[in-house]
């Protein structure tokens, strides 16, 4: 336990570097939004440190266990908005036990005293209970924005508390969460005189909401510009909502199942024509070809199209994309196939981000999905592409090399060849050269996920070339400790490293001794690391928390899952029995 290392620098009080009063400095610094800039500013001198602290309105905490709420409140007394992230990312894929931690309540308990006027809370991978949500709703009278992504532990009762008590709510954004979806009655809890809502996203809840209550809510919230409805909202309902809210900028449709009369279809078409400001469209559950044309008039200004829950085929996608010339971000299911992706390449020259999700990750009945051909086609047509998430069943080194030649500006390259350890399907060689090409060509690369059959050569390339890499995900790859060593020694900006099912052992783990304090966290599971290796790491680096989770029935000496992260508050005290804290031992 000790102060933030950065705080240890001493600045002579006598030398005032700022020629103007604190208030002015604070005013100027309050214009800085980026927390990286603010961190830099706070290092200039003590005055600037103080001014920055007093003017910071939004604080971002990437790992809730790296710091305590008390320390945050002490340093930043006037915060209005907090973003908190909790569990390691692999908890999204069931690799972390449910009771692992990251409970938001201790934070709320401090905020109620220190930030009673808190306005915004954005949580990712935190454990949130209904009690916490009710506590939030009852104790923060100025509360405006709630965003929950990949959180769990709460139910729709918690949402009811928010709707009932948050008189100034402007945003309720419930993204993909492990929510106990008991009923849709929470939506009816918004009081009849409540009109401040600007963002309402309940697309990922399944239970039916009362449509009349929703319609009234939408009608009276004149500033509503984001509405993402769930499947219980039919097309007929949607039409009525759109009539109330033609000002929408982002729309998530409900169910798109065909069930309208000709007249209703015409009405729906008309309401889409009225959506002049729409730039984001999502939802489209159970969408089918005959009804997609109703969207076309609203697509002219679309920049983000999320079709990742719509089982569309290539022709349907192509017809839709013809009407979206300004598309910058596209999310689709691999049901669109390579042909669908050819259509993307042909119709979306401004595309910057593409995500292709697998419709059937485990179903062997599906024969293709997408292949290297689809990705290639996109790269030829969309030269501005810089973010890709691509799930496929086959890939080649040559294709990837061509793709990055076409699109050298990748900042995020996440390629998932779904069969673990699969080689280049044409040459049967490892996919080393593919990722070598990526890191060599894409000098701005910040995030990389690798897959396929990979030897240590891939990691030599990464260490040698990926100088801007911050986040790296590795699975079923590598041949020896050297692989991990290359990553740790070579990537100066590495912050998050997550590894699973790789032959990296203690030597590899310990080669990063000097590195981990400059990183947010390291995750290693199903590798060859042992308890003694972890203990050694913990002993040598007291400012790191080294946590180990063991699998049932595994060898006593094996460290099945290892999570290492820097912290200024030492080992956490809320770890469940399955999490062994090796720090401070």
């Amino acid at each position: 336990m000790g102060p933030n290392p950065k705080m240890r620098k001493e600045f002579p009080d006598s030398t005032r570097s700022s020629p103007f009063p604190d208030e002015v400095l604070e005013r100027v610094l309050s214009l800085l939004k980026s927390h990286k800039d603010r961190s830099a500013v706070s290092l200039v001198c003590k005055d600037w440190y103080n001014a920055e602290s007093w003017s910071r309105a939004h604080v971002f905490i990437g790992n809730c266990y790296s710091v305590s709420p008390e320390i945050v409140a002490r340093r930043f007394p006037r915060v209005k908005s907090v973003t908190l992230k909790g569990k390691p990312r692999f908890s999204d894929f069931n690799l972390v036990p449910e009771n692992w931690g990251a409970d938001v309540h201790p934070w709320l308990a401090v905020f109620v005293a220190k930030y009673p006027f808190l306005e915004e809370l954005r949580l990712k991978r935190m454990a949130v209970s209904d009690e916490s949500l009710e506590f939030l709703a009852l104790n923060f009278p100025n509360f405006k924005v709630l965003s929950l992504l990949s959180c769990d532990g709460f139910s729709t009762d918690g949402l009811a508390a928010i709707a009932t008590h948050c008189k100034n709510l402007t945003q309720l954004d419930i993204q993909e969460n492990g929510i106990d979806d008991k009923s849709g009655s929470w939506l009816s809890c918004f009081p009849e005189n409540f009109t401040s809502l600007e963002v309402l996203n309940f697309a990922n809840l399944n239970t039916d909401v009362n449509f009349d209550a929703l319609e009234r809510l939408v009608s009276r919230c004149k500033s509503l510009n984001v509405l993402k409805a769930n499947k219980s909202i039919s097309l007929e309902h949607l039409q009525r909502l759109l009539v109330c809210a033609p000002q929408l900028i982002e729309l998530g449709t409900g169910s798109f199942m065909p069930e309208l009369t000709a007249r209703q279809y015409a009405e729906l078409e008309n309401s889409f024509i009225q959506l002049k400001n729409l730039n984001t469209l999502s939802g489209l559950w159970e969408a089918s070809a005959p009804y997609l044309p109703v969207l076309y008039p609203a697509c002219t200004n679309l920049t983000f199209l999320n079709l990742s829950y719509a089982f569309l085929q290539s022709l349907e996608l192509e017809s839709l994309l013809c009407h979206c010339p300004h598309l910058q971000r596209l999310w689709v299911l691999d049901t669109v196939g390579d042909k669908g992706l050819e259509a993307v390449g042909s119709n979306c020259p401004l595309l910057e981000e593409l995500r292709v999700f697998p419709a059937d990750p485990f179903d062997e009945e599906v024969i293709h999905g997408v292949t290297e051909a689809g990705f290639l086609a996109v790269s030829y047509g969309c030269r501005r592409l810089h973010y890709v998430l691509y799930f496929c069943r086959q890939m080649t080194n040559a294709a990837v090399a061509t793709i990055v030649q076409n699109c050298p500006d990748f900042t995020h390259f996440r390629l998932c060849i779904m069969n673990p350890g699969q080689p280049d399907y044409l040459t049967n060689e490892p996919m080393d050269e593919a990722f070598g090409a990526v890191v060599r060509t894409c000098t701005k690369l910040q995030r990389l996920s690798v897959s396929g059959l990979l030897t240590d050569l891939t990691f030599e390339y990464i260490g040698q070339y990926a100088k801007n890499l911050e986040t790296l995900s590795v699975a079923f790859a590598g041949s020896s400790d050297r692989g991990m060593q290359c990553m740790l020694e070579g990537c100066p900006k590495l912050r998050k490293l997550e590894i699973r099912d790789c032959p990296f052992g203690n030597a590899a783990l310990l080669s990063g001794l000097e590195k981990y304090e400059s990183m947010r966290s390291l995750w290693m599971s199903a590798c060859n690391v042992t308890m003694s290796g972890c203990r050694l790491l913990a002993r040598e680096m007291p400012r790191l928390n080294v946590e180990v989770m063991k699998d049932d029935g595994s060898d006593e000496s094996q460290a099945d899952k290892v999570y290492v992260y820097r912290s200024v508050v030492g080992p956490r005290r809320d770890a469940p029995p399955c999490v062994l804290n090796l720090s401070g031992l």
Partner: protein
Amino acid sequence: MEVEKGTKMGFEETELRLGLPGNGGGGTEGGESAKKRGFSATVDLKLNLSSKEGGDDTNHEKTQTENNLLATDPAKPPAKAQVVGWPPVRSFRKNMLAVQKSSTDQGSAEKVPGGNATFVKVSMVGAPYLRKVDLKNYKSYHELSGALGELLSSFTIGNCGSHGTKDFLNESRLIDLLNGTDYVPTYEDKDGDWMLVGDVPWDMFVESCKRLRIMKGTEATGLAPRAMEKCKNRSFK
């Protein structure tokens, strides 16, 4: 033949790869996957046969890849199912997609009399994706074949098959073909057996059909002993 070699190498490569680090490789799922494996094994033999015959250009490429994939099927499913958290798709998304799929894929078991649709999946050799049909929309095999023809012509538009015609799956042609040995519609019934479409009265078919699969005639050999016999002298009612 290069195709053959490629296929075999792919199969072996992947077979070796089964012993993944961290892959518990626990027991298989028992009944269902055993059944599936049995079927796949059968199909596998047939595919090898048909590729030896030099296959027509139409599905040559696709058949090759399909060979790779189907050939590895018998060994694959347990491995895939066992690896926790892979592929890295959020559980939330997986569940949502699964719910959507199952809600449109109601087998006879869940059919409400006189009520909802009876959607079944239709897959076809060489096709990149599945389609769905509502069996309740049709009153006879004849109607169904017409619909299938339309549905599946989207798979084959642009392909000049060995038949040399562009949309060779128009209604009457489909019936001709289905009566011949080129394409054989088969279905999985309530008991998990793969049967030839047309064997049983229409109503009984709708009752028991869980999903449809259009196979090449040569694949269907050995599917059911009487299949080939039926093929020769079947009248597609």
